[in-house]
C-alpha cells in the first residue's frame, strides 16, 4: 500500500484531515500504515539535491569519526554509553546513508531514521560546540527531519502539531475570537486585585508587542495575565496582536518546512501591522528559536532578522530589574537554594546566558548553578518535540536522568525553568523519579516578590 489514509506524504490540509488523525488515539492506525508507506526515492533524491547545502555536504564528508562528540551527548551518557548513541554515528547511519544511496532506501530504513531523528536527538546542538570541526549534528538532524517529513515518516503527534499550525496558525486549535475572549476573561478575573489592568489588543506603535505559546491561551491563561501584570507594574506601553500572537513552531520539530514558513510569516505580519519598537517573547525556548533565530530564513528575509528587534522574556525581566522598572522586595527574595535551567534554544543557541544570572541576583539569596551550565548545559531531556511524542515516552524518561542528576547535585529543591519544554520535562521528571523538587516559570514568582507602587494597588 503506497499512501495510507492517515500516514502519507500529504500535509494536513483540512479540519477533516486533522480530526481523522486526532481520532486515531496514539496513532495506532497511523503507525501501522507507515509500515506500508512507499519511499519515493526519486523525489527524495531530488529534494536532497535541491535543499542540501554545501555546509551539510561538507560536514558529512569531513567527519573523521573521532568520537569526540560522544561525551557531549547526554543521550549517549544516560544510555550507558551505547555506541549507537554517538552523535556522529547517529547522523552518518541515517542522513549519511540516504545521501550515499541517493535516496534509494527502504521503508524499514526510513522508519529507523525516524526513530533516530526524534528519539535519539533533541536538536540541542551541544555536540556542535565540542566537535573540533564544529560539525553540528543537531542542525543536520533538523534537516533530516525535513526529509523524513516530506516522505511521510514523521511521528503522529508532530503531524498533528504542524497540521494545527497550517489550519490555525497556532500549535493548538485556538481561534482569533477565542484568543481575544481569553484575554478579556483574564483581565476580568484580575481587575479586582489590579485596578486599571488591561491587555491592549492590536495597539499600533506600542513599545512592546508581546507574543506567546498557544498552550498559554489554551490551558494556562493565567500566564498571559501574569505577563500583563508585570508589564503594567513596569509601566510598559505594550500590546498583543489578535492574530500572529503564537510564536511556537511544532512544525519546526516536525520538519514541516512549509508550515514553518506559514507560521512565522503570520507572526512577522503582526509585527509589520502593529509596528512595535520591540517584540518580547514569552518564557519558551523553541518559540524564540523559531521566531527569532530560524524564522527569518524560513521567511526569506534578506537581512536574516525579524522585522523588529526581538527579545526573550528573560532579557526583558533582566532589563526591567536592572533599570528599576520592576523592584523586588528584599524580604521576599527566595531564601531556599534555587537553581535555573538554561534552555538550549535561547542560551546555547542565542547567547542569552547572562540574563537569568542577573535575574537571580535580584530574586534569590542562594542561587546554585547546575554543572555544567550556561551554553554547556544539558538539554532538559524533553526538547525538540521529545516531550510530546507518545511513541518515545520510554526513551524520553531515560533522557530525563541527566537533568535529575544535575538538579540533585545542586542541592536545590526548587528549579526555575523559563521555558515551556524544560518546565514540562522537569515536571515529568518529578512525576517519574520523585526527587522532591518544585519548579516554576519566572512570572508567578516575580509577581509575589514585587514592590508594587501605591497607586497601582486596589483601594480598600
Amino acid at each position, binding site marked *: 500500500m503506497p499512501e495510507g489514509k492517515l500516514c502519507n506524504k500529504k500535509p494536513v490540509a483540512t479540519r477533516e484531515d486533522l480530526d481523522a488523525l486526532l481520532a486515531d488515539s496514539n496513532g495506532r492506525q497511523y503507525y501501522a500504515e507507515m509500515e506500508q508507506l512507499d519511499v519515493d526515492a526519486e523525489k527524495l533524491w531530488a529534494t536532497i539535491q535541491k535543499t542540501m547545502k554545501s555546509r551539510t555536504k561538507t560536514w558529512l564528508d569531513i567527519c573523521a569519526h573521532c568520537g569526540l562528540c560522544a561525551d557531549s551527548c547526554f543521550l549517549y551518557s544516560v544510555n550507558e554509553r551505547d555506541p549507537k548513541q554517538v552523535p556522529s554515528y547517529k547522523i552518518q547511519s541515517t542522513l549519511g546513508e540516504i545521501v550515499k544511496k541517493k535516496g534509494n532506501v527502504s521503508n524499514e530504513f526510513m522508519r529507523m531514521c525516524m526513530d533516530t531523528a526524534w528519539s535519539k536527538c533533541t536538536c540541542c546542538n551541544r555536540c556542535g560546540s565540542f566537535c573540533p570541526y564544529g560539525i553540528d549534528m543537531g542542525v543536520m538532524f533538523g534537516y533530516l527531519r525535513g526529509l523524513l517529513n516530506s516522505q511521510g515518516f514523521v511521528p503522529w*503527534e508532530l503531524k498533528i502539531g504542524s497540521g494545527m499550525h497550517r489550519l490555525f496558525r497556532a500549535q493548538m486549535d485556538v481561534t482569533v475570537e477565542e484568543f481575544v475572549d481569553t484575554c478579556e476573561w483574564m483581565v476580568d478575573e484580575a481587575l479586582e486585585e489590579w485596578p486599571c489592568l488591561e491587555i491592549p489588543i492590536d495597539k499600533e506603535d506600542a513599545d512592546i508587542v508581546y507574543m506567546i505559546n498557544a498552550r498559554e491561551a489554551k490551558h494556562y491563561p493565567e500566564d498571559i495575565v501574569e505577563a500583563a501584570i508585570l508589564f503594567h507594574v513596569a509601566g510598559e506601553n505594550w500590546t498583543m496582536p489578535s492574530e500572529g500572537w503564537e510564536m511556537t513552531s511544532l512544525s519546526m520539530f516536525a520538519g514541516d518546512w512549509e508550515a514553518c514558513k506559514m507560521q512565522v510569516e503570520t507572526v512577522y505580519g503582526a509585527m509589520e501591522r502593529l509596528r512595535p519598537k520591540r517584540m518580547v517573547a514569552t518564557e519558551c525556548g523553541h518559540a524564540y528559536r523559531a521566531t527569532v533565530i530560524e524564522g527569518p530564513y524560513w521567511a526569506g528575509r534578506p537581512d536574516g532578522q525579524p522585522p523588529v528587534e526581538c527579545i526573550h522574556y528573560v532579557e526583558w525581566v533582566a532589563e526591567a530589574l536592572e533599570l528599576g522598572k520592576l523592584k523586588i522586595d528584599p524580604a521576599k527574595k527566595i531564601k531556599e537554594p534555587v537553581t535555573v535551567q538554561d534552555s538550549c534554544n535561547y542560551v546555547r543557541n542565542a547567547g542569552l546566558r547572562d540574563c537569568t544570572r542577573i535575574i537571580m541576583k535580584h530574586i534569590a539569596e542562594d542561587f546554585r548553578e547546575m554543572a555544567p551550565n550556561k551554553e554547556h548545559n544539558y538539554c532538559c531531556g524533553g526538547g525538540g518535540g521529545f*516531550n510530546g511524542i*507518545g511513541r518515545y515516552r520510554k526513551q524520553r524518561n531515560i533522557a530525563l536522568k541527566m537533568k535529575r542528576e544535575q538538579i540533585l547535585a545542586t542541592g536545590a529543591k526548587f528549579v526555575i525553568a523559563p521555558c515551556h519544554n524544560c518546565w514540562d520535562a522537569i*515536571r515529568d521528571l518529578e512525576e517519574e523519579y520523585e526527587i522532591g523538587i518544585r519548579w516554576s516559570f519566572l512570572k508567578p514568582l516575580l509577581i509575589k516578590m514585587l514592590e508594587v507602587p501605591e497607586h497601582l494597588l486596589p483601594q480598600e
Partner: protein
Amino acid sequence: MFTKILFATSGSPCCDAAARVAFDLAARYNAKLFVYHVLGVPSRGFSQVVVDVRTGEKVELDEDYTLWVKDELKNTYDRQMKGGVECEIDTAVGIPHREVLRKARQEDVDLIVMGASTTGCEADADAYQRHFAGSTLQRVAKASKAPVLVVNRPVASFWGGFTNIVFGADFSKASEHAFKFALKTARELNAQLHVFHAIDIGSTHSLISQKELDDKMIEARDRMRRKYLIQTGDFKNVSADIWEGIPYVEIVKYAREKQADLIIMAHHSKDVGDEESAFGHTLEQVLLRATCPVASVNRPDKIQNM
C-alpha cells in the same frame, strides 16, 4: 434565586454529598443543572493520558474513554436525574480549576457546587502534584463570579430545610458581597442569620493585652453594625456575635454551637498559589473542618440580580 447551577464533580463518592445538594437545589429552583467533569491535565502533546478517577490508573484519553466517562456519570447520578431536573452532562480536558471557571463563564451560571477538595479526590491530588498549587476549589472560589457552595460531608438537612445560617464576617470588600448573599439566602429560606466575626489573636503564644482586645472588640462591633447589620431592614431573624481566637477555629466552633446548616464567607486570600498558604487560610480550613456546607463569595456580579 438560581436559574443555572454548575455541579463540578470528580464523579467519585467524595462528591456524593455535593451531588445531593446540587440536585436538590436545581429541583427546588427549577434551575438547569450542568454536571461537569474535568478529565485531567493535558501533558503529552496530542497523545494525552489522564488518571482515571475511579481506578487511579493512567488511561489514554480518546473518544471512547470520554464517552465511557459520560456514561458512568449518567449512571452515578441516574436516580437523581430521574427526578425531573433539567440536566446536562459534559466533560473537558484541562487544568481543573480553569475549566470549571471557563464553563461557569460560558454558561453564565448563578452558583457552582463542588465536593471535597483534598480528601480522596484523585483528580485534585493530581492537579496539586502537577504544581498548580492550591486546590482546584480554592482557585475556583477565588475567581468565580458566582457563589461557590462546597459540600464536604453528607448534610443533615436539605437546602429548603436550612434553619441556621452563619455568616463569617471579615470586613473585607468581598465580605460585603458575601453578606448580601447571606441575607438573601436567609430571607429566602426564612432561616436565622448569625453574623459572626472572630478577632484574630494570632498564635496562642503571642500575648495580646486585654485592653487591646477590648478596643478591638469595640471597633469590630461598630464595624459590624455599620457594614452589615444596617442592611437587614425588616428582616428580624438576625443575631450578631464577636469572639476572639484563631478565626477558623472560632468559626467552626460557633457554627457547631448554632447548629448551622450553612456557613457563608468571603474568599479574599490573595496568595492562592503560595505553597505555605495553600491550605492554610481561614476559608480553606473552615471548608475542611465544618460539618455543614460552606458557601464562598468573592464577587458581586451574581449576587446583584439574585
